């Protein structure tokens, strides 16, 4: 699947990063803060199609080097038509990964069960985002937006857990859990 899609000159780093973060990682720190000032070109007749390429991105990372002019233009346009076989390959990959996650669930990895399941789910979600949702060919800032959403969700979870997982550390007489009596089972 990935072989076919490599015809399109996209930045491989972007793909990897999105996948890592979607899988629950914490890459791309302070994404908006770093990237918003350099993004996008001011509007105007000369900055119409393919504006991200012509307008320059002083603050953000440079666009991936493209093979030809046409490819460079296509890369950031919503008018980019993805070959049908890419979609078929993506669907096949998603179905295979679903089978894998169901199969792997039969094996007990102990505490890593959830890690394995979320890694596979993250991979699937990244594939959907990159290909079905066209993030791969879309303006890079859209990907930053998406990834920062996940980053803030991670902050939400992590900082809440700093409380919920440490309530018994300093005052052991308080059970870290709320007032639920765990049954004998």
């Amino acid at each position, binding site marked *: 699947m990935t072989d076919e899609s490599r015809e399109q000159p996209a930045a491989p780093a972007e793909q990897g990063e999105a996948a890592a973060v979607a899988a629950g990682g914490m890459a791309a720190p302070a994404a908006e803060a770093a990237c918003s000032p350099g993004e996008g070109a001011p509007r*105007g007749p000369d900055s119409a199609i393919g504006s991200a390429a012509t307008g320059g991105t002083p603050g953000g990372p440079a666009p991936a080097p493209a093979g030809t002019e046409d490819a460079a233009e296509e890369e950031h346009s919503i008018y980019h038509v993805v070959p049908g076989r890419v979609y078929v390959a993506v669907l096949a990959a998603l179905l295979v990964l679903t089978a894998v996650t169901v199969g792997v669930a039969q094996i007990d990895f102990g505490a890593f069960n959830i890690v394995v399941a979320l890694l596979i789910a993250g991979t699937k979600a990244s594939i959907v985002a990159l290909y079905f949702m066209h993030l791969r060919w879309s303006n890079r800032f859209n990907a930053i937006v998406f990834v920062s959403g996940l980053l803030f969700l991670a902050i939400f979870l992590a900082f809440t857990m700093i409380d919920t997982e440490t309530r018994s550390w300093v005052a052991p007489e308080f059970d870290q859990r709320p007032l639920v009596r765990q049954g004998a089972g």
Partner: protein
Amino acid sequence: MTTEAPAPATAELRGEPAPSYLQEPRGLWSWLTTLDHKRIGILYLISVTAALFVGGLFAMLIRLELISPELSFFSSTLAYNQAFTLHGAIMVFMFVIPGIPAALGNFVLPLMLGAQDVALPRLNLASWYFWLAGSALMIGAILAGGIDTGWTFYIPYSSTYSREGDAVLLALGGVFILGFSSIFTGLNFVVTMHKLRCRGMGWFRMPLFLWAIYATALLQIVATPVLGITLALAMVERAFGVGIFRPELGGDPVLFQHFFWFYSHPAVYIMILPAMGVISELIAVHSHKKIFGYRAIAFSSLAIALISFLVWGHHMFTSGQSQVAGAVFSFLTFLVAIPTAIKAVNWVATLYKGQIALRTPMLYALGFLFVFIVGGLTGIFLATVSINLHLHDTYFVVAHFHYVMVGGTVMAFLGGLHHWWPKMFGRMYNERAAKLGWLLVVGGFIWTFLPQFIMGSRGMPRRYATYNMEGLEVHQPLHLMSSLGAWVIGAGMVWTLCYLVYSIFKGRRAEVNPWRAVSLEWDVPSPPATHNFPIDPHVDFGPYDFERIDEATGLIRPGPESQRLLAAAAVKTLPPGAEEENSG
């Protein structure tokens, strides 16, 4: 427009002024269905002002009760609890959060960017209707018997104890819908700033108000949905009892506080960041001096936005949160002081050797600087866990956040309103009347809230209807002082409303650029035409390049590219024969 230089000739040919956005199209229906960002800004301005007065009325009633240690004005402590709950909920969700971004921001943002409108005008109008719908539910909650949960809707008050019919559900639903209004506004602004800046308008040519609005919008987008799910869960919890927050069903009420403050702490910055943006404009324009540390102020807005997501636990030091989390949140809270202080230092440095004109907007900015710094510094006390244990839920906290919210946001709102008033309505307010209003508001403010710092540090608890016990009566003189001050603020607000409304009808006509400012909203007529800019503008100057002002006319001198563009457009428009006249 920077490009009006050849315009006079064109104008004389036509001999009639273009109708302003206030004039055309006519009729109430055209206002209620408008997609014009300027009109939506005015609709918001009217709505949030109404909310301000309703919320203020509740504040007056609260202060009336507290003059005496016994229950005197209200019929019951329940009625008092309802009054402070509604005061808080209306002020926070219906006035302070939408106040500056949705009212002032909607009006000036596209103009400042050189854009014809916001990116999604229909969503913009929808946002106002969501505000109306949410507010209607809040009023429904009042009519259904009122709520006494506090504006924070803490579990178990909101899930179990407040049993006034369906009022709590209505209020939760109302705030849920108000959240949509806030999200739509923020989303719209981010897209507009990314996609609709005019030619030459780089990120660092945007006025600092827009940087602040941008940071605010990010908070609105990321934080508000969490409020939505929190309130939805609280509603489900109250209606069905799902046991996620309700302790008697196995839930954790502290978890509700985490969820709530994950939104509501960033929401504090949703309230104050736009105010800081307004202050940057006021201080630069009214001291007629390039702002000191443009990038520092711009990036400190983003830094505040980011840090605000890491500090919410400082609201929960005494609520059963783990002490490890308390220490972490306390430390991170101190970090907020850094970007805030960067802003304050840069504002003061801008004033230094500026041509300070003590007009009303500048007076409000100076008032902001003074009281906001007190508010900010007392925040550092409260962020310290050990001191917080003493001050928690006392009037010290009340005074602190009123110094920030009223002394900060309300003053910036009033300052910004006076600053952009000539642009909005094409009329000048009466400067002497406005100075009196400023004196009443700022004086009344300090008079009201300074005593509360003293009471609070001596242990007067907040949210008590009566204080005739345990020696708390000693605070009665300070309470009396505070109550009198509140009525002075109220008088100042009514006075301000009166002279501003009067000016719409009888005020002196405003020039295009009365303050000699350089951002693009001061380059269109006062009030602007429906179509913001006849041709898309081109900027080749920064927002504080005051040397670009032509001191004779007060207008911004167009750059060479602008002159070329306008000349080209004018030639196309003029009837035959007029061209020679124009060039001659």
